[in-house]
């Protein structure tokens, strides 16, 4: 049996695990829950590997490989089936999701060991895996949307995992609502697509779309609108401006969740969708430009906020946002493969960062404020080493993963026609900032003298179950980028080559671009590295040489500092211009006026009317059989009169003889 015919197994396994844990887990000891959760995800990882192995042996003509399992919705000429699709893009996502997901599951068994609702956590986590796999395997927008909403749901559940903490549940709600805004756009986009192409299955849709003429730049054609709408959804899911606000708060969830959902996989769904529908986007240069700008802006914006945050996880959150911005930048400038590449590498090192941060928090007993850490490098060496690796990777030091991916993005940004230089400049600046705040994090956390109460807090290295994933991820974030390494030595970028079947149409003569790139590759790389080093240097100077300096700086330019510290007051602004008016409208207008005065009044009115009518009519209900009989007879008379009407007309002859 070829597993390609049974693709549904891959998502089904986590679903099964989720169901089993969710239903029976409460009675079971953690061990069994572990076995179920980790086992199911592990199995699905193996299944994914096998699927990929068989996929590589497929003949090019049956790629993308689509299996139709059953028709889910059918209405008129609209058909949404439970169809799973696997192509090169899917393969990458599949491996990232299952692999990283599995590692994080293992990590969680250690991290969550002492938490309540253990089974609940893993049930949710498996559920997330299921929906994420549906999302990446879906062969049409509808099923993809199912996964899309599903991951949203599980993310909501997991953010609010400590639902006793108000902040947590609020964060959950915030995430959910903000995502809804995006989903609104996404659905509109789907509708528009269906209206235009009459189908939502990827293969036929793109086949129809390819020959159509692209919209002109700056002109709102169908493609542009559809893409912008889809991108709106992507913004919601992938926390881009202006919908990024939920992601930092999402850090209320347990750290593995932040790692898996809010760094590695779910938040990249937006990127995935954009890449998946790249054909539409290439038909809409305007949309592409918007994507690029938004991505770039987000990257820079989030990075600046990340500079001053003191909560270790928030720093990582903002860095996630900015990295996602990078990916969108890549997609926006048409380098989808680069974007996906960065997605993958980012999945590795950002997951690693979060997990390591989790390990740190775990080590010093739940403290998240970097200002109360420091000098931990001796005590928790392995965590330190792995986290340092990840930092180097994200800061873009060669030859780690981040370097290659980020470099690819910057290169394509530089090459892109519309305002490429500016995008490049901001990207570079962001890279600098990135390396700065990452090293700031490292220094504040691991170096300098301890700023926590050493008598109270007893620092201890995390258990194996947490460290092993860290190491694996560390290795991955080192070697993860080497697939693209050959680009420097003139030979083609394997990753791009691998994804070429998908992005072939869009790569617009990738070879030519490659050739043009050869010249720029090296210098740009050097520039990037320099900027990274610069960031490192600044951080080193500020946080190791003169630890007092940052405070003075903060005082000296308190305006900027506070603005950054309060994240540009975005939440406040949103509250002021959206949330509060909305609340006011809903309470005083919708509730007081519409609901109470109009709707309730109508409903009650109807009810009272019914009562009054009943009062009138009930007198027929004398409870006396004989009167009932009379009513029956009257009815019978009427019916007979109607049926036999023709025979009662005097016209008809023939009397009783």
């Amino acid at each position, binding site marked *: 049996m070829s597993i390609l015919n049974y693709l549904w197994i891959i998502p089904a396994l986590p679903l099964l695990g989720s169901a089993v844990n969710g239903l029976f887990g409460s009675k079971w000891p953690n061990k069994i829950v572990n076995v179920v959760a980790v086992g199911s995800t592990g199995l699905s990882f193996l299944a994914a590997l096998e699927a990929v192995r068989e996929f590589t042996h497929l003949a090019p003509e049956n790629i993308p490989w689509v299996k139709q399992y059953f028709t889910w919705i059918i209405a008129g000429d609209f058909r949404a089936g439970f169809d799973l699709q696997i192509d090169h893009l899917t393969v990458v996502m599949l491996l990232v999701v299952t692999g990283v997901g599995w590692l994080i599951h293992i990590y969680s068994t250690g991290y969550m060991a002492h938490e309540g609702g253990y089974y609940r956590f893993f049930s949710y986590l498996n559920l997330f895996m299921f929906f994420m796999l549906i999302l990446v395997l879906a062969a049409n927008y509808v099923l993809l949307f199912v996964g899309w909403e599903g991951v949203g749901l599980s993310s909501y559940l997991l953010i609010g995992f400590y639902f006793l903490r108000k902040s947590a549940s609020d964060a959950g709600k915030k995430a959910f609502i903000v995502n809804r805004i995006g989903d609104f756009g996404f659905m509109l986009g789907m509708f528009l697509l269906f209206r235009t192409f009459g189908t939502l299955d990827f293969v036929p849709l793109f086949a129809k779309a390819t020959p159509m003429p692209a919209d002109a730049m700056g002109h709102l054609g169908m493609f542009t609108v559809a893409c912008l709408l889809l991108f709106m959804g992507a913004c919601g899911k992938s926390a881009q401006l202006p919908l990024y606000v939920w992601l930092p708060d999402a850090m209320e969830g347990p750290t593995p969740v932040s790692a898996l959902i809010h760094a590695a996989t779910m938040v990249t769904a937006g990127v995935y969708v954009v890449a998946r529908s790249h054909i539409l986007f290439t038909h809409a240069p305007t949309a592409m430009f918007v994507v690029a700008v938004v991505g770039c802006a987000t990257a820079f914006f989030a990075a600046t906020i990340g500079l001053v945050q003191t909560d270790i996880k928030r720093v990582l959150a903002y860095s996630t946002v900015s990295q996602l911005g990078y990916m969108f930048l890549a997609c926006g400038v048409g380098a989808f493969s680069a974007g996906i590449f960065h997605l993958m590498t980012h999945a590795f090192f950002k997951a690693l960062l979060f997990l390591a941060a989790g390990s740190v928090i775990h080590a010093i007993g739940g403290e998240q404020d970097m200002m109360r850490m420091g000098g931990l490098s001796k005590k928790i060496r392995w965590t330190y080493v792995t986290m340092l690796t990840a930092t180097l990777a994200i800061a873009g030091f060669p030859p780690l993963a981040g370097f290659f991916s980020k470099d690819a993005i910057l290169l394509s940004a530089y090459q892109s026609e519309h305002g490429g230089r500016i995008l490049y400049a901001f990207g570079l600046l962001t890279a600098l900032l990135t390396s700065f705040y990452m090293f700031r994090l490292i220094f504040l956390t691991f170096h300098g003298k301890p700023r926590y109460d050493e008598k109270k807090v007893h620092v201890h290295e995390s258990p194996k179950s947490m460290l092993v994933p860290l190491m694996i991820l560390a290795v991955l974030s080192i070697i993860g980028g080497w697939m693209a390494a050959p680009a420097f030595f003139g030979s083609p970028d394997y990753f791009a080559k691998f994804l070429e079947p998908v992005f072939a149409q869009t790569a617009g003569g990738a070879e030519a671009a490659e050739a043009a790139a050869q010249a720029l590759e090296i210098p740009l790389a050097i520039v990037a590295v320099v900027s990274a080093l610069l960031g490192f240097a600044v951080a080193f100077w500020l946080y190791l040489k003169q630890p007092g300096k940052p405070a003075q700086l903060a005082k000296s330019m308190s305006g900027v500092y506070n603005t950054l510290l309060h994240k540009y007051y975005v939440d406040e602004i949103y509250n002021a211009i959206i949330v509060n008016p909305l609340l006011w409208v809903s309470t005083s207008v919708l509730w007081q006026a519409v609901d109470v005065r109009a709707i309730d009044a109508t409903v009650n009115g109807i009810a009272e009317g019914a009562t009054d009518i009943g009062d009138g009519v009930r007198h027929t*209900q*004398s*409870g*006396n*059989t*004989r009167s009932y009989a*009379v009513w029956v*007879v009257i009815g019978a008379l009427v019916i007979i009169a109607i049926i036999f009407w023709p025979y009662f007309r005097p016209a008809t002859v023939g009397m009783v*003889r």
Partner: protein
Amino acid sequence: MVPTHYYLILSAILFGLGVVAFMFRRNIITIFMSIELMLNAVNLAFVAFSRALNKLDGQVFVLFVIVVAAAEAAVGLGIIIVIARNRQSLNVERVDLLKL
């Protein structure tokens, strides 16, 4: 040979009398009997038609009606016994718990 519609008219009359009895009588048993009367009227119509159309189905239906009537009598009389036992009266006008 008796024309079919004689039988039909007779059955109509019997049915009507049954209805009258149903509305006119107060004794619950008598009312029940009037129901039986109506059933019989219908049976007559059935047989008449079965003869008119030279099909036996009508008679089969009569048999079914009789069976149903028997079952109905069993249950109905059981109910009547219970009513009589609980309310010490067979007058339907005294059994009007359903009134407003």
